[in-house]
């Protein structure tokens, strides 16, 4: 089975994230890392490969240096990485990103395309559904448990109302929840071996994607202005001396919140 994992390289959790005030784009100059919930998708791909054999490709879109962070997936056990990197792709919104990823995925003709949950920088949880529609494949998202039985995927999906169980034939697109597994740590052997695994970088031209469909030209949303959030009002501090509950009630009553 061929599995493609779509993964994003995001600023490291310790980095101060900022949007460039001129371009409104995220400043990606600092330390970066594999988006934490995408690591769950890599892990799930490796488990499926271990159970059913196959190949795991990790596919990403980002600046050239994103390749460094993608090596973590290779060290965990993925077979190869493909990075779509092109100045013309910078500033892509959901629609432009979908066009680029779908073009890269079509080259892979994977049986299963896996996504992680929301990215830690854009907080979106939307890409997989757009890609599934573009590829015209069935979709199961928010999957907390995934099995392959008789050539069919069975996913347990987290919803507001509990768990749905959904089946879909291959080829399919699946987005996993971070509850699905505990990702492994790369072994020393894995880290050493990662260096010799195939790591391919593709341009828009390589993908045959028109420049008008990528980056800002291919985007259908834009940022108008950035402003700092309004500060919250003064804080009321209550040390509990046995009467905290009364003080909370008084505060809420005064603001008509009861």
């Amino acid at each position, binding site marked *: 089975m061929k599995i493609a994992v779509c993964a994003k390289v995001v600023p490291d959790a310790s980095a101060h*994230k900022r*949007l460039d005030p001129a371009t*409104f784009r995220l400043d990606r100059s600092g330390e970066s890392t594999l988006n934490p*919930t995408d690591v769950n998708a890599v892990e799930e791909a490796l488990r499926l490969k271990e159970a059913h054999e196959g190949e795991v490709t990790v596919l990403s879109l980002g600046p050239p240096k994103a390749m460094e962070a993608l090596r973590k997936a290779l060290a965990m056990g993925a077979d190869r990485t493909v990075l779509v990197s092109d100045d013309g792709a910078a500033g892509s*919104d*959901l*629609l432009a990103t*979908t066009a680029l990823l779908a073009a890269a995925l079509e080259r892979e003709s994977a049986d299963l395309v896996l996504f992680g949950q929301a990215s830690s*920088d*854009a*907080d*979106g*949880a*939307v890409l*997989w*559904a*757009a*890609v*599934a*529609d573009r590829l015209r494949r*069935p*979709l*199961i*998202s928010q999957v907390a448990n995934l099995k392959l039985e008789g050539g069919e995927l*069975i996913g347990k999906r*987290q*919803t*507001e*109302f*509990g768990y*749905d169980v*959904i*089946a*879909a*034939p291959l080829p*399919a697109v699946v987005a996993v*929840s*971070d*509850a699905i597994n505990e990702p492994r740590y790369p072994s020393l052997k894995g880290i050493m071996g990662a260096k010799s695994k195939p790591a391919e970088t593709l341009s828009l031209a390589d993908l045959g994607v028109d420049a008008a469909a990528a980056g800002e030209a291919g*985007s*259908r*949303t*834009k*940022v*108008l202005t*950035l*402003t*700092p959030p309004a500060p*919250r009002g003064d804080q*009321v*501090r*209550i040390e*509990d001396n*046995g009467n*905290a*509950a009364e003080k*909370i*009630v008084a505060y*809420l009553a005064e603001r008509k*919140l009861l």
Partner: protein
Amino acid sequence: MTALVFLEHHEGELEKGGLGVLARARAIGLDAAGVVLGSGVGEVGASAGGQVYVCDDPALASPLPQPRVDALAALVAQSGADTVLFAASVLAADVAAGLASRLGAGLNWDLTDLRLEGEELVGVRPALGDTVIADVTWVGAPRFGLVRSGAFEAPESSGDATVESFSATFEDFSTQARMLEQAHEEASGPSIEDADVIVAGGRGLGKPDNFALCEALAKELGGAVAATRAVVDAGWYPYSAQVGQTGKSVSPKLYVACGISGAIQHKVGMQSSGTIVAINKDPNAPIFDFADVAVIGDVEQILPKLTELVRARNA
């Protein structure tokens, strides 16, 4: 500007989130109609007021996103709507993104407000953990928007709707995923998406049984119970109640955080709440950096008293 608002429904009732978005769309001057999709949903949309489109088809029986993309794409074409808005949910996010891809249009998500500036629709989108507020818009039409839970209040009543049926054809790939077992969680009280008041619990509750303290207070406040990722992972409370980066983003009028440290992953899901009351025995807990009321004390002591006082006021 003609807008469609996706009205999600559960057990025969419209969800408040969609009704709130519909009310807001109408209030800012959009010519907005509701859309109800499902099987056997004839009367479900009748309380949404104004114009409501209904597609009643067995292909829409299960709450799966892809047939809904087909139906909405058909309705956008038939109605000439230039805007489609959704209240965020697991289902709505998939439908909105699929539709944006299908129609080659823009989607903005996590919106906390919408306004018209002349002929331009502008959304307010807190970004990077709500550390910066972006005003966003769309290039061309149609425009698609996902609104953060709790951003707009649903009216008490929207009045009777004029219901118009429409039909759709479904793509082969859209109907390949099938529901084997649909969730039926017994819900008591409002869901966290719909609640004006949320009482949330974290590790600092000490033990799973202490969620009963949160539930008792939530009941008296007419609210819902939420949980942090740590306690959901530990199996203390179901995922459907999880607030934070990998759960729901909510903005109720009142958020009572009980034994929650306030890690960034939780903060991003609740910091746009109206009033935040935090109870924690650690005076250095990060949640006190952004709570309106910082209560340093033991939740096991304070919550039962608080519940009793609220009950007395309600009586």
